[in-house]
């Protein structure tokens, strides 16, 4: 039942191919440039490298503290995600299964905080942290990141906990299990997919953030990967292949995670594509 004006399958494929190409262009450029020498890049900026060199990767890893920055980012990701997940699981469980005053208000406020841009919170926190000597401390930054990702965690977990059949809670309750036991033994094992999604999306947020990192982790020794990148790219402004090797290394962890966990990533992004 085709009318002449309908886009054919070929046209659809071409549009999607073009979109996929555009989505990948920076990645392709980054990888092929990283494999070129400065001399080759000077004469050929578009083509594939004729004789790929790994020298750029070596000098990034040896001459720049990339791995160290990654370690700092990793500490913040682990700390913030663990803290936020623990707090959100408890809170979301109460919101989803218990009756108490202020419950709906709490959920509404928490959910609306998802959309508040972090920049409006930085001034008082920075002033406070300066007074308490908490600037450039892991615990200080972890606390802020944990707070920023928590509204999304609560939203996602409440939505998920509400889908757990009530009979499960009631059966466990009759068996004499306390609330905490029910949460740990019945609800959490069921929530594993939601938890993985949550951890993936939140890790991505903390790992990729620049604003909080620049302001609250100012010491060279505490610099995160994203803040390090801004310093690094300024320093090697004219050595494009070297810069690109740095970017390949910097994007590798999330890229590998994405390829390994695409299902969780895609589900996570689609379920709460708010961030």
């Amino acid at each position: 039942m085709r009318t002449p004006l309908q886009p054919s399958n070929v046209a659809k494929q071409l549009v999607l191919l073009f979109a996929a190409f555009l989505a990948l262009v920076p990645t392709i450029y980054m990888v092929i440039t990283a494999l070129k020498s400065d001399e080759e890049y000077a004469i050929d900026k578009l083509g594939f490298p004729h004789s790929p060199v790994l020298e750029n990767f070596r000098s990034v890893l040896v001459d720049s503290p990339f791995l160290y920055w990654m370690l700092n980012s990793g500490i913040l990701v682990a700390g913030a995600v663990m803290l936020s997940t623990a707090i959100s699981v408890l809170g979301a469980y109460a919101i989803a299964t218990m009756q108490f005053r202020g419950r709906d208000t709490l959920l509404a406020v928490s959910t609306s905080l998802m959309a508040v841009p972090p920049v409006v919170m930085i001034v008082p926190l920075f002033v406070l942290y300066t007074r308490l000597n908490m600037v450039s401390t892991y615990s200080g930054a972890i606390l802020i990141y944990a707070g920023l990702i928590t509204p999304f965690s609560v939203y996602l977990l409440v939505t998920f906990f509400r889908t757990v059949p009530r009979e499960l809670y009631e059966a466990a309750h009759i068996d004499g299990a306390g609330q905490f036991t029910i949460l740990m033994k019945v609800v959490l094992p069921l929530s594993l997919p939601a938890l993985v999604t949550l951890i993936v999306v939140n890790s991505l947020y903390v790992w990729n953030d620049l604003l909080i990192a620049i302001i609250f982790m100012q010491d060279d020794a505490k610099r995160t990967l994203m803040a390090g990148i801004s310093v690094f790219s300024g320093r090697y402004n004219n050595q494009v292949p070297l810069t690109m090797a740095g970017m390949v290394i910097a994007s590798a962890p999330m890229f590998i995670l994405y390829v390994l966990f695409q299902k969780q990533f895609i589900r996570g992004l689609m379920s709460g594509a708010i961030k």
Partner: protein
Amino acid sequence: MTPSSRLTPYLYVLPLVALLAFVFGYPLLRIFEFSFKMVRGIDGPWIGLRNYQLVLGQSLFWESVLHNLQLLLAIPVMVAISLIVSVLLSERVAGWKLYRIIVFVPFVLAIPIVAVVMKRMFQFSGPVNELLRWMSLDFMALDWIGSSDVALWTVMILIIWRESALGIILFLARLLSLDESVIEAAKIDGANWWHRLWHIILPEMRGVIEFYMVISVITMLAAVFSYIYIMGGGRGGPGTSTEVVELYIFNALIRSSLPGIASAASVMLFLVTGVLIFLLFRVRRRAENF
């Protein structure tokens, strides 16, 4: 119910309330207070509206606001791109799962990384201009990064490239949840592709499109720091040509150590986003009811 079990829910939400109060509650109250004070170090005397007068009297602030508003022009482009790609993906054309993995990539890569890469691609002697010259489009080979007339548009290209991925994700989630029987029925009735798109699919997507647009307005006004910071080499450069309100707040706080000024700008930004968040919730309620 025993008294202890009545307390239980509050024990469960206590850490949550404390964390949110610290990271959101405290700062959101404090910016109002600071904005009326001359803060030196950690506190200072009340000075009424002086901070606001200073901020509103500064041409740099208005220039920043204008740049944020200019970024709003990206939103229709983002909506169009997201719609086309998500609708095609939702038709499950051959290879759609692979396409889906690929078009989500911009959203997985960190903004600072992509900004560094794009900056090199758009350098005056970079690959984009080389390609344009090779295609004999020399007049289009602009100084994308270094010219103050063009720099903000270049940042906008990057923003469109990345934020469209979010639109595709959102729209696709909505499209895949659509009731397929309606679309099938329309096919049987002989409705052609455009007709189905216009009269059946788009009305169903109205809620999610509005939602995405409001989210994007908030992004353009208050969440483009990473793009600007990296593309402008740590400043809103060249000169002040890509300065935005976020960078204005950042500079007032970190580079000039004027928390009062930074707070006054933060308050104004918060009030604007507050209105948008209110709108967002009305839009979302509608999106959920559809």
